[in-house]
C-alpha cells in the first residue's frame, strides 16, 4: 500500500530524514518508535504533504501512485489520514462544518453526492458516543479551547468519519487518560480491516497493549535502524534506545 524508498527530506538547511525506507501493506499495523527529534513527525508530515519539508531524494508511492506529486488535499482524498501530534485550534470554524466539508470532499472525489445532513449528524453522534465525546463538541470551534486529550479524541473522530485506507497517528496516545486511551484504541481497532493499514507513532508500549502491531520500527536520526515484531517494543521499554543505536552502528 505504502512504499517508501530511501526518502530524504530537509527543513530549512537541516536534513532530517536521511534515507528512510518502509513498506506498509494492506491489513497491517505498524508502530514507529524512536527518540525525541529523530524525525517521526517529519515522516508523518512528509507523507501528508506539508510543503515546509523539502523532499531531496527517494520515492514514496501509495497504492501505486507517486505520492510526492500530489497536493495534501489530494492525498487525503486518496485515503491518507494524519492524526496530528499537535492538532491545530481554528476558532470560528465549526467542528461539524469541518467534518462535513472533509467527508464531502472525499465523496466528491469518489464521484458520490454530498452526504445527507441528517444521516451525517446521526453517524457523527454514534462515533462520538463510541469515543466518549459529548455531542456538544460538534458545535464548537475546531479544537478551540479543547483540552489535550479532547483534541486527540477529535482527531480520532475525524479519522472515524473519513474511514481512511492509511491512517498515520502521530502520538495520538500522548496526553490521554486511561479511559480515553481505551476509547481511542477501540476507535482504531474498529478501523482495522484487510484493506486498510495503520501506522502508529508512539513513545509508549502501553498503547500497543490495546492495539497490537504487526511490526515495530525504530527511527533514529532520520533512518529506520531496526524493525521487529511487537516484542521489540517490550525490549525498548526495558532497555531504552542506546542498545539499538549501538547495534546499528556496529
Amino acid at each position, binding site marked *: 500500500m505504502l512504499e517508501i524508498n530511501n526518502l530524504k527530506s530537509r527543513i530549512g538547511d537541516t536534513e532530517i530524514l536521511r534515507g528512510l525506507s518502509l513498506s506498509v501493506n494492506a491489513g497491517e499495523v505498524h508502530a514507529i518508535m524512536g527518540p525525541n527529534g529523530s524525525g517521526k513527525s517529519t515522516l508523518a508530515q512528509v507523507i*501528508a*504533504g*506539508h510543503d515546509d519539508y523539502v523532499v531531496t531524494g527517494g520515492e514514496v508511492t501509495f497504492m501505486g501512485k507517486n505520492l510526492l506529486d500530489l*497536493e*495534501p*488535499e489530494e*492525498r*487525503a*482524498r486518496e485515503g491518507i489520514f*494524519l492524526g*496530528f501530534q499537535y*492538532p*491545530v485550534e*481554528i*476558532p*470560528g*470554524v465549526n467542528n461539524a*462544518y*469541518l467534518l462535513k*466539508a*472533509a467527508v464531502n*470532499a*472525499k465523496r466528491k*472525489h469518489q464521484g458520490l453526492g454530498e452526504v445527507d445532513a441528517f444521516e451525517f449528524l446521526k453517524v457523527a453522534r454514534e462515533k462520538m458516543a463510541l469515543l466518549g465525546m459529548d455531542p456538544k463538541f460538534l458545535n464548537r*470551534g475546531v479544537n478551540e479551547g479543547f483540552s489535550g486529550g479532547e483534541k486527540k479524541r477529535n482527531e480520532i473522530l*475525524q479519522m472515524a468519519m*473519513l474511514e481512511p485506507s492509511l491512517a498515520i497517528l502521530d502520538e495520538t496516545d500522548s496526553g490521554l487518560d486511561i479511559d480515553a486511551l481505551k476509547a481511542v484504541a477501540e476507535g482504531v481497532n474498529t478501523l482495522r480491516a484487510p484493506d486498510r493499514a495503520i501506522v502508529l507513532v508512539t513513545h509508549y508500549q502501553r498503547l500497543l497493549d490495546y492495539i497490537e502491531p504487526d511490526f515495530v520500527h525504530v527511527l533514529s536520526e532520520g533512518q529506520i535502524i531496526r524493525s521487529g515484531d511487537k516484542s521489540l517494543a517490550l525490549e525498548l521499554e526495558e532497555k531504552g534506545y542506546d542498545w539499538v543505536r549501538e547495534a546499528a552502528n556496529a
Partner: protein
Amino acid sequence: MKQSALSIDDLREAVMRLPDDSLTATREAALASLDEQGFPSIRDEDWKYTDLSSAIDVSNRWLAQGAKTESTDALRKSIKAITASIDAHWLIVANGIVDLTCFGEPADIEVEKFSDSATPFVMDRPLADLNAALLHDGLRVQVHGATEKPLGVLLIDETSGGAGVTQANVDIEVAPGCDAEIIEYQVSSGSEDHYANSVIALQIDQAAHVSYVRIQNRRAGHIQTARLSVALSADARLNMASYDLGGGLVRNDVDIDINEAGADATFNGLFLAGDGQHIDNHTRVEHRVGPASSSQEYRGILNGRCRCVWNGKAIVHKGADGTDANQANHNLLLSDHAEIDAKPELEIYADDVKCSHGTTVGQLDETALFYLRSRGINKRQATQILTHAFAADLVARAPVATAKDAITALVEKRLGELIKEEDL
C-alpha cells in the same frame, strides 16, 4: 503632486439653482466657508493616506454638465429589493432627494425635513460645507420610544446621464431612556461615476441605548465620504458595527463624543477590500468626562491590489478620570499587493485611565491551512473557510438582529468574490 481644485464658480451656480427655501442662507454660508477652507488634501494630517482628487474630478465633471442628477429606471427596483431584505421603518435619501414612502407610520418616531424646520444645521468642516452647500434637503428624526421595527436610513444612489454627486444629511436624536435600533445602509449602482457625501449626527440622550448597524455596499469605483458623529449623554450606550463591502474610494469618519459620565460606546467594523479599492476608516473618541468607556475593534480582509487605512484616535481630556478606552485593529492580507496603514493614537490628559490598543497585520495561519488541506479540503476552499472565520466573529456582533441575515449574505457574497480574485 498638486491636487486639482473644485471649480467654485460652477459650484456657486449649482447652489443657486437649488430651490429657494429656508435652507438658502445656510447653503450660501457653507459655500463661502468651503471657498475659504478648500477641499481636504493629502497635506492635511487627517487625509494623509486618502487623496480626494478623484472626488473633485467627479464633482467638476458633474458641475460642468449642469449639476443634473437623473435617476435610472432601475432605482425603484433597487430600493424595493433592499427595503424588502431588511424589515425596518425606512427613511430614504435617493440620489440626494429625501423619500418617506417606505417609512410607514411608527408611533414613536417623528420625522421632519430640514426645510420645514427653523433649526439651522451646523457645519464645521469642508466636507460638511460641501454637504450643506449642495443639500437638497435633510431629515431630522426624533425617537421617543421603542418601536417594534428598527429605524432604517437608506442612502442610495443610482444616477444616469453623466457623473453624479449626491448629498445626504440626517440628524437623529434618541430620547432619554429609549432603546433604539438603527440601520444605516449606503449603496450605489449604475454605470456612471459617482461621489456620495453624507453627514449623519446621532444624539443619544441620558440612559438611552442605541444599537446601530452600518452597511456600505457601493458599486466598484464609486466614491463615498461619510461622517457619523455620535454624542452620548449620561449613562447612554452605543453598540455599533460597520460593514464596508464595496466602493472604490471610501472614507468613513466616526466621531464619538462622550460628554457625560457613565456612557459606553462600543463600535466595531469589518472592511473587505479587493482590487482597486481604497477604504479608510478614521475613528475619533473624545472622552470629555469619566467614568466612561469606549471600545472598538476593526477587522480588515484585503486581497488583490488595494489599500486600506484604519486610524483610531482616543482623546482622554483633563479630568476624565475613570476612562476605559480600548482599540484594536486586525488585518488579514491575502495578497502581496494589498496594503494597510493601521494607526492607533492615544492622547491622554487625565490621570486615572485605562487604555489599550493593538494592531496586527498578517496572512492566514499556514498551520491551520495545512490542517484543513490534510482533511481533503482544497486550498481555495480552505482559504475561504479561514477567511470567513476571521470575518464571522464580527458578523456575529451585528447588534441589530433584523439585519443579521442580510449582513451575513452580503459578507459571504463579497468574500466569495474576493477570494476568487486571488490566483490560488
